[in-house]
C-alpha cells in the first residue's frame, strides 16, 4: 500500500467514526442559534446555456452565510466556484437557468425584479472579482467610477460622491489624490484595492470575493487579506471568500466549503473540514497542499468531470479510491456530521447508517 492509500484509509476510517459520533447531532435541525443569517441558498442550481450544450456549473447547493463570518469556498478550477458567487446576486448571463432559492435578508433574490436586484447589488451585496486588470472601465477615471456607482443608488452630487470616493480610497491605502487617474495608470495591486474601495463605499452586508488576491504578489495579498479581515471585524461583514489558496483559507475562515463538479461536497467549520475531513476529495485536496519541507508531492490522479455532461452519480467517482457501484449510480445524499458539518458521500452515509445500527 502506498502512502496515498494509507492516507485515504485514514480519511475513510475517520469519516466512518465521525459519522458514528455525530448521529445525534444529525437528528437535530442544524441551525446556528444566536447568529444573524445574511444569506441562505437552498437547492441552488445554475445551468449555463451555450449554443451546443448545457453546462451544469452549479448543482443543488445549500449554503448559509452569517454576519461577521468568513465562508471560504475551495476547489479545483472550473468546478463552479465563480458561478456560485455570481449566482448569489443573480449576476449570470442572460439565458442562464437558475433554480432553487436564495434568501438574502428575508428576500428571495431570484424573484426580485430587475430594478430591485440592481438596488441590492453594490449597496447590500458586493462582489470583487479575480482579475482587477480588466474590471475597471479603461475610459473612465477612478473618480467617475465612484460617482457613477454612488449616483446609481443615491441622489448625491458629483462633488460629494467624489469626496466619498476619496475617503474610500484612503481606507484601502490608495492616495485619494489619484482619484482623477485612469485605471491603466495603476498597478494590479492598486487596482484591486480600488475595486475593494468601490465595493465597500456602500458598506454592504455581504462581500463576495472571487479570488480577489490570486493574481497579486504575496505581500499585497497579505495586505488585502488583512484589510478584508479588519472590515469584517469592524462592520460585521459576511464574506464569501472564493479561493484556490488553502493557506489563506486556514488563516481567515470561519467556515469552509469544498466544491467539486458543481456540488458543494463538504462544508463545515474550518476546524471540521481541515482536521476531520470526511469527503475523500477534501482529503486529497489537503494532501496535495505543498508544505515547507514536503518531501513527496502528492496529487489527485485524473481530471474533474466535464460539467457539460456530468456523471449521474458522485462527480468524484472516477477519481475516488473508495468508490462503489452505488457511487456511479446516484448522487450521494447529504450526511450531517454536526450542526455545521455536512458531506455528500455514499461512504459517509453508509458509515452513519452503520453507526445508527450499532446503537
Amino acid at each position, binding site marked *: 500500500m502506498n502512502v496515498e492509500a494509507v492516507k485515504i484509509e485514514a480519511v475513510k476510517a475517520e469519516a466512518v467514526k465521525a459519522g458514528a459520533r455525530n448521529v445525534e447531532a444529525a437528528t437535530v435541525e442544524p441551525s446556528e442559534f444566536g447568529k444573524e443569517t445574511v444569506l441562505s441558498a437552498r437547492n441552488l442550481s445554475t445551468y449555463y446555456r451555450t449554443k451546443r450544450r448545457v453546462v451544469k456549473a452549479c448543482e443543488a447547493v445549500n449554503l448559509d452565510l452569517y454576519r461577521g463570518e468568513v465562508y471560504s469556498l475551495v476547489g479545483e478550477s472550473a468546478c463552479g466556484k465563480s458561478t456560485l458567487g455570481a449566482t448569489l*446576486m443573480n*449576476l449570470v448571463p*442572460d439565458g442562464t437557468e437558475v433554480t432553487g432559492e436564495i434568501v438574502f435578508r428575508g428576500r428571495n433574490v431570484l424573484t426580485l425584479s*430587475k430594478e430591485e436586484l*440592481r*438596488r*441590492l*447589488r*453594490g*449597496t447590500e451585496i*458586493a*462582489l470583487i*472579482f479575480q*482579475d482587477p486588470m*480588466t*474590471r*475597471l*472601465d*479603461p*475610459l*473612465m*477615471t477612478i473618480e467617475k467610477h465612484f460617482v*457613477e*456607482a454612488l449616483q*446609481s*443608488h443615491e441622489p448625491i452630487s458629483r462633488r460629494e460622491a467624489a469626496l466619498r470616493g476619496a475617503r474610500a480610497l484612503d481606507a484601502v491605502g490608495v492616495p485619494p489624490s489619484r482619484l*482623477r*487617474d*485612469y485605471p*491603466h*495608470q495603476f498597478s494590479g495591486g492598486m487596482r484591486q484595492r480600488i*475595486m475593494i474601495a*468601490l*465595493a465597500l463605499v456602500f458598506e454592504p452586508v455581504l462581500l463576495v470575493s472571487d479570488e480577489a488576491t490570486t493574481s497579486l504578489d504575496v505581500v499585497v495579498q497579505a495586505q488585502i487579506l488583512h484589510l478584508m479581515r479588519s472590515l469584517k471585524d469592524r462592520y460585521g461583514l459576511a464574506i464569501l471568500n472564493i479561493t484556490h489558496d488553502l493557506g489563506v483559507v486556514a488563516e481567515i475562515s470561519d467556515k469552509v466549503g469544498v466544491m467539486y463538479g458543481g456540488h458543494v461536497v463538504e462544508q463545515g467549520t474550518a476546524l471540521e473540514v481541515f482536521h476531520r475531513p470526511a469527503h475523500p476529495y477534501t482529503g486529497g485536496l489537503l494532501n496535495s497542499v505543498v508544505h515547507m519541507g514536503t518531501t513527496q508531492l502528492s496529487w489527485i490522479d485524473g481530471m474533474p468531470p466535464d460539467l457539460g455532461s456530468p456523471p449521474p452519480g458522485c462527480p468524484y467517482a472516477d477519481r475516488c479510491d473508495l468508490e462503489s457501484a452505488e457511487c456511479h449510480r446516484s448522487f450521494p445524499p447529504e450526511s450531517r456530521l454536526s450542526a455545521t458539518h455536512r458531506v455528500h458521500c455514499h461512504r459517509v452515509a453508509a458509515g452513519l447508517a452503520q453507526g445508527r445500527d450499532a446503537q
Partner: protein
Amino acid sequence: MAGRGKPSSLLNYIVLRLLLTLPMLFILLTLVFVLLRVAPGDPAAAMLGAHASVEVIDELRERMGLNRPLVVQYFDFIGDTLRGDLGKSFRFEVPVWDLVKHRLTATLELVFFAFLIAVVIGLAVGIFSANRRGTVWDLGGNVYGILTYAFPIFWLGIMCQLFFAVKLGWLPTSGRFTGFLSPPAMHTGLYVVDSLIEGRFDKLVTSLRYLALPASVLGVYISGIFARMVRTNMLQTLKSDYVQAARARGVKERWVSLRHGLKNALVPVVTVLGLQFALLLGGAVLTETTFSWPGLGSFLVGRLLERDYPAVQGIVTVFALGVVIMSIVIDIVNALIDPRIRY
C-alpha cells in the same frame, strides 16, 4: 497628471503623423502620374475628336506640354504640387484648384449632412438592437442594416425622387440650388453656411431643400453599415469584465449600456466611420449622378474620360489630402475618447 492629457504631446504626434504621410503622398502622386500615361488614350485626341488631323493633335500636345520628356513632366508636376499649384485643366484652361474647390465643397456639404443622418440613425438602431439582443427588435435592426446595404443606392435615390419630388412635390428632384436665386457668395463653399453668413434665410431654406433628398438617401445607405458596426462592437463590450463589474455595483442599466458599452465600442466605430467619410469624398459618385449634384466624384469621372491629366492629378491630390486629414482627425477623436492613446 490628471484630467485632460497633454496637448503638447498630442501636437507633436500630429506633426509626426503629417511628416509620415509625406512619403505616402509622394508615392500616390507618382502612381497617378504613371497610370494616367500608361493607360490608353491621348488628351489632345480626346479633346479634338475622332476627325482631327495628326498635325492639329500634335500642335495641341505641344501646347499642353505633353511633348516634353516624361521625366521633365514628372518633376514639373511634383514640384508644382509641392508648391501648392495643381496646374491648369487641359479642358477648361483654368487653374484646377478653381474648378475643384466648388466641387469639393459641394461634396463636403452632401457627405457631411449624409453623415449626420447616418450617425443619428446608426447610433439609434445600433444601440437599440444591442440592448435588445436576440429579440424581434434586434432582428428588425439587423434586417434594416442588410436592406439598406443591399439596395442599390441609385434605385433608392430614384424611388425617393419619384415619391417625394415628383408625386408629392415636396422637394426638388435634383441639382444643388434653384435657378431663380443666385447661390450664396462663396465663403466656405458650403451653401448652408454661406447662406447664414449672408444672412439670407430664403437661401438657407433653398439649400436645405436641395440637400434633403441626396443627403437622406446617402445617409440611410451608410446608416445600415454603421448600425451594424455599433451593434457588433457594443455586444462585444457589453460582454467585457468591466461591464459585469459595473452591473455587480448596481450601476443603472442605461449608464452601463451607454457609458461603458457604447463608449468603449466607439474607438473602432470612429475609425471605420472616419475612413468611410474620406472615401465618400471621391466615392459618392452614384448619389451625385442620380441627383445631378455637382460634386467631386462625378467631376472626376468626366475628367478621366477626357484624359484631362492636370485635373485628374489635382483631384487625386485633394482626395489624398482629405484621407490624410481625416485619419488625423480620427486619431485626435480616438485620443480624446481613450486615455490610453492620450498618455
